[in-house]
C-alpha cells in the first residue's frame, strides 16, 4: 500500500560555483509518494524547476542502489539522512511525514570543495587511495582459486572493511572533518589479507601521511560510524593506529617492507 507525503518544505543549499557565496532556498513539494526515494523526490522537484525555466538543483548520484558512493547530502544535519546504515539514494520518503521541513546541505570539509549546489569534489579520497590503497601484484596468468588460504574470520573482517564505498559521509559527519574511518577501512581491508602483507607498513605510513595533508584529526567521537552507510566500525581506526605505530616502532627488518 502506498501512501503519499504532503506539504514538504525543503530548505536546499544553492551555490553557483566553488568560489561563489551560497545560500539556502526554500521549495515546496505538495505531494510525493512515500515509495519515492529521497533522490527521486529531488528529481521530481528538479523537473518542476526545469519546466518553470529555473536552474535545476545539482546533486551527486549514480548507482542509486547504495553501492557506488556517489550520492551525498547532509539531510537535517545528518550525513545521508536519518536512517542508519543507508546511503541517501536508499533513503525513502516514508522516513518523513506530512508537513515536514527538511534541510539539505552539501557535505562540508576543506578537502571537499563545493562544485555547485549540493555536489562536492571528493577527489582527495583518490589521493589517499593512490598513495597506498592497492596491492602490487604481477599480472601473469590467473592464479588458482583458493591458492592462498585465508582463515574465515580474517576474510570476513577484511570484507567488512572492503564494504566502504568511499562516499565521504564519515568526513562530512566528523566534527573535525577527519578521514580516519575511510582510510582505516581501506587499510584494514588490505592489511588483514595475505595479499596486502608485503606493503603493509609502507601502505599505512603513506596513506596516513597523505590523509594528513587534507583532513582533520580523529578525536574518537564515533560520529563517522553512525553516519557510514556501510556501518564500518571504528575498530578499523584502531587498526590503522596500531599498524601506524608498528610502522614507526617495530624493527624494520621484521616488518614486511
Amino acid at each position, binding site marked *: 500500500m502506498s501512501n503519499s507525503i504532503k506539504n514538504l518544505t525543503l530548505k536546499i543549499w544553492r551555490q*553557483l560555483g*566553488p*568560489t*561563489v557565496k551560497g545560500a*539556502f532556498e526554500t521549495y515546496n513539494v505538495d505531494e510525493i509518494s512515500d515509495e519515492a526515494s529521497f533522490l527521486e523526490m529531488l*528529481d521530481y522537484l528538479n*523537473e518542476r524547476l526545469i519546466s518553470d525555466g529555473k*536552474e*535545476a*538543483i*545539482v*546533486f*551527486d*548520484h*549514480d548507482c542509486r542502489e547504495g553501492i*557506488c558512493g*556517489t550520492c551525498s547530502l547532509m539531510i*537535517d*544535519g545528518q550525513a545521508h539522512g*536519518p536512517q542508519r546504515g543507508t546511503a541517501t539514494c536508499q533513503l525513502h520518503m516514508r522516513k518523513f511525514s506530512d508537513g515536514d521541513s527538511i*534541510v539539505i*546541505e552539501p557535505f*562540508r570539509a576543506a578537502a571537499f570543495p563545493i*562544485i555547485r549546489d549540493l*555536489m562536492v*569534489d*571528493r*577527489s582527495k579520497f*583518490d589521493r589517499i*587511495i593512490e*598513495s597506498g590503497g*592497492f596491492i*602490487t601484484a604481477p599480472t601473469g596468468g590467473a592464479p588458482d582459486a583458493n591458492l592462498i588460504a585465508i582463515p574465515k574470520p580474517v576474510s570476513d573482517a577484511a570484507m567488512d572493511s572492503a564494504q566502504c564505498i568511499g562516499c565521504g559521509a564519515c568526513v562530512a559527519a566528523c*566534527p*573535525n*572533518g*577527519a578521514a*580516519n574511518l575511510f582510510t582505516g577501512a581501506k587499510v584494514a581491508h588490505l592489511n588483514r589479507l595475505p595479499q596486502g602483507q608485503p*606493503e603493509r607498513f*609502507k*601502505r599505512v605510513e603513506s596513506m*596516513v601521511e*597523505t590523509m594528513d595533508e587534507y583532513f*582533520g*584529526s*580523529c578525536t*574518537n*567521537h*564515533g*560520529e563517522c560510524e553512525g*553516519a557510514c552507510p556501510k556501518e564500518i566500525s571504528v*575498530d578499523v581506526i*584502531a587498526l*590503522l*593506529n*596500531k599498524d*601506524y*605505530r608498528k610502522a*614507526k*616502532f617495530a624493527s624494520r627488518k621484521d616488518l614486511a617492507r
Partner: protein
Amino acid sequence: MLRPPSLVNVTTIVKPTPKTRNGQDFFHSPKLSGVEVPRWGRSRSTVSGQSVCSIRGQGGRQERFKGIPMAQAVSSQRGPVTGTAMRSRKRRPFLLDLYSTAVGKKYVMAVTGIAMMGFVLFHMIGNLKMYLGATDLNHYAKFLEELLYPLAPHGVTLWILRAGLITMLLLHLHAAYSLTVLNRRARPVKYQSARDYQVATFASRTMRWSGIIALAFIAWHLLDLTFGVVNDHVGTKDADGLKDVYGNVVFSLQRVPVAIFYVIANVLLGIHLFHGAWSIFQSLGWNNPRFNKWRRTFATGFAAVIVIGNVSFPIAVLAGVVGN
C-alpha cells in the same frame, strides 16, 4: 576510474623512470608532467538524470566558468596527476617522525593522558588520608618528599616526578593545540544548518573546554597549595614540626568560592576523562573484541572514582567533617 576521453588533455608523458628509492618502492607509474588531466573522482555526475554537459548553456552559470564544461572547470583546480605510488618521505628521527602526523600526535595525547590519569588517581588516593586526620596527611606529605631517600637526596625524587608531569602536561597541551588548529582548517566553512549528532557525546565535543578549565584549575591549585601565593596558611608547621598540609587544605577549602571552583573543575575533569579514558584505547590501537565492551565501563568507572574522591574533599571541609 572512468575518465571521459573528450576531457582528457594530455600534453606530455614523461617515460617512467625505473628508479627505486632506497630499493623500497614496489610500484612505479608514468609521471605526467605539465598535464591537466580532468579526473572524475566519481564515475558520473549528473543533474537529475541529465549528464553534466547537457546543462551547459543554461543561464546563470558562474562568470568564471562560462562556456567551460563543469568537469573541466573543476579539474582546473586540481593538481597534476601523480599516479599511484607509495611515497618515501624523508624520515626524521623516529619520535619526531611519529609526532609529525595527527595519528602520531594522538599517541602522544593518549600516553601523556595515561600518565596524568595515573597521577590524578594516586593524588586522589593520597588525599583520602585527610579523613584519617592531620597527622596521617602530614606524614604522607613528608613521605612524598622523602621518596627513595636515602638513595636520592631530600625532595629530589618528588621534583623528578613533578618535572615529568609538567612535561606530560606541556606535550598534551601542544598536541591538543596543534590538532585543534588542524581540525579548524579541515572545515573552514561550518555547516550552515544545525547538526544532529548521533554518537558524539557532550564529553567528546567539549574536550577542549574541559581541558582548558582543568589547566586553569591546575594553575590555581599550584599557586594555592604548593607555592602558597594565594594561601596564607602555607608555611605553617604542625606539632611534629612537619609542614601542616592538612591545615593548608582546610584553610583553602573553607573559602566557599574556592570550594565551588574545586567542585566545578573536578566535575569537568571527570567529563574529560569520561571520553578520554575510553578514547585512549582507540588512539593506541588497543581494540580487541574480547575486551572492547569493558572500555566504556573502565572509562566511566575511572571518571566516577576521580570525581567522587576529589569532590568529597571540599564538601567534607565545608561540612566540618575535615578540619575539626
